[in-house]
């Protein structure tokens, strides 16, 4: 079972199992017919992908969010109007749209930067609502790892050390560091899936009990 669709489905109070993703052709066709579910599926599939690209290029979360939203809307409008000639190349089309809009943003960023120098930055707000539970979920999964494995993940992902450097620090062989890192990430995914499954079962029971 894919991890992220499960989590996203859970937090959105979605179905017990994530719906199977539609084939690109079917998805494009459904959007052209104006099916709201298809548009939601499209947005869910590409939103965070575009955010990744935008954030890497722009280094500014607020701008990245704006550009991502703009990209999804622009792509959806094109799809509604049937302007995608090769629906099988949907991913490449969205990626290209994102790249163009990011480039536009970068080109016009001089004025923005000038303004930013003279204005206080607005307070950041979480556009997604609270993420406390998401954090708790991850922390609980991380807490189940052996301390050494947590340490390897920290040294890799926070301190950005390579396996050889970590091996020297922790008294392990580099191949052991690599193996433990891979194993740790797999364990986290499994743990999250397990927690999510338990949550879902518990919620289902509560709903049945209350009915």
């Amino acid at each position, binding site marked *: 079972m*894919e991890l992220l669709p499960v989590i996203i489905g859970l937090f959105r109070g979605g179905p017990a199992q994530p719906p199977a993703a539609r084939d690109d052709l079917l998805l494009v066709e459904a959007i052209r017919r104006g099916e709201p579910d298809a548009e939601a599926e499209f947005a869910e599939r590409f939103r965070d992908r575009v955010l990744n690209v935008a954030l*890497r290029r722009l280094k500014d979360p607020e701008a990245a969010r704006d550009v991502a939203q703009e990209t999804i809307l622009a792509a959806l409008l094109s799809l509604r109007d049937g302007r995608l000639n090769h629906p099988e190349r949907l991913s*490449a089309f969205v990626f290209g749209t994102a790249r163009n809009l990011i480039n536009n943003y970068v080109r016009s960023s001089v004025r923005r930067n000038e303004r930013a120098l003279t204005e206080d930055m607005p307070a950041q707000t979480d556009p997604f609502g*609270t993420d406390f539970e998401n954090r708790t979920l991850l922390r609980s999964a991380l*807490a*189940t790892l052996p*301390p050494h494995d947590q*340490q390897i993940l*920290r040294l890799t992902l926070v*301190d950005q050390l390579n396996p050889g450097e970590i091996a020297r620090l922790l008294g392990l062989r580099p191949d052991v560091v690599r193996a433990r890192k891979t194993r740790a990430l797999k364990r986290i995914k499994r743990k999250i899936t397990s927690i999510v499954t338990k949550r879902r079962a518990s919620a289902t029971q509560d709903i049945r009990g209350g009915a």
Partner: protein
Amino acid sequence: MSCDFAVREALAERYVLGKLNEAEAERFEEHFFECDRCFEEVQTIRAVREALREMPLAVPARPASRWPIRTLSWAAVLLLGIGGGVSILWLSQESSRPAADAGAQRSAALRLADLAAIQPPPFTPARLRGAGQRGRDRFREAMALYGGGHFQAAIPGLIAASDADPADAGSRFFLGICFLMVNQSDRASEALRQTVALGDSPYLEEAHFYLGKALLRLNQIDGAREELRRAVGMHGDLEAPARALLGELQKIAPAGGR
């Protein structure tokens, strides 16, 4: 680009850490636009990274029931209906953190590893005592290797010497040091514990001190703190360094904190 290639080259991790060049990053982005598996890997690594940045250093051997997850009401969580998932966590975290420290801040784990670094203590032959002739010979041979910096090569001789005379603290102590020097912290802590267990010896203070170091390497912080306190309590040459280590340790992983 294939998934196998992406996995083999750890592209998801390198992408999140900003270690791909522009062309590599763009190729990988094109790939994860189509590939759910690789995109999931990117999001998982991002989320784990942000969670680790927020979490205090792990102190081992805490019972599972101590974690707050046990106190949550899952049904209530579900009914909140909050949007997004782990995949969006990183973004809000990125936005609330000053750009200056992104990726550059040394974690507590790295500072801890620094504290655990050691220089091998010098060996003074006059300290040799108590071993039988055979054990003494093996010990001398091993310590000649030790003096030359050949710690791995010294280990078999030190094991033989400590087997020949189980009451000899010197061979066990330097065995522990050799294990530390070749990054076998588990075995180092075992040998140093045995040295401590032998009781009063010329190596007792050092054994506590270096056992503390070995436990730091093993991320056994409470145990390390205890051994360093014992080294301080002996008021010998290592009192000041042990105190300094305890002070640094307190900054990284405060006693009594999580």
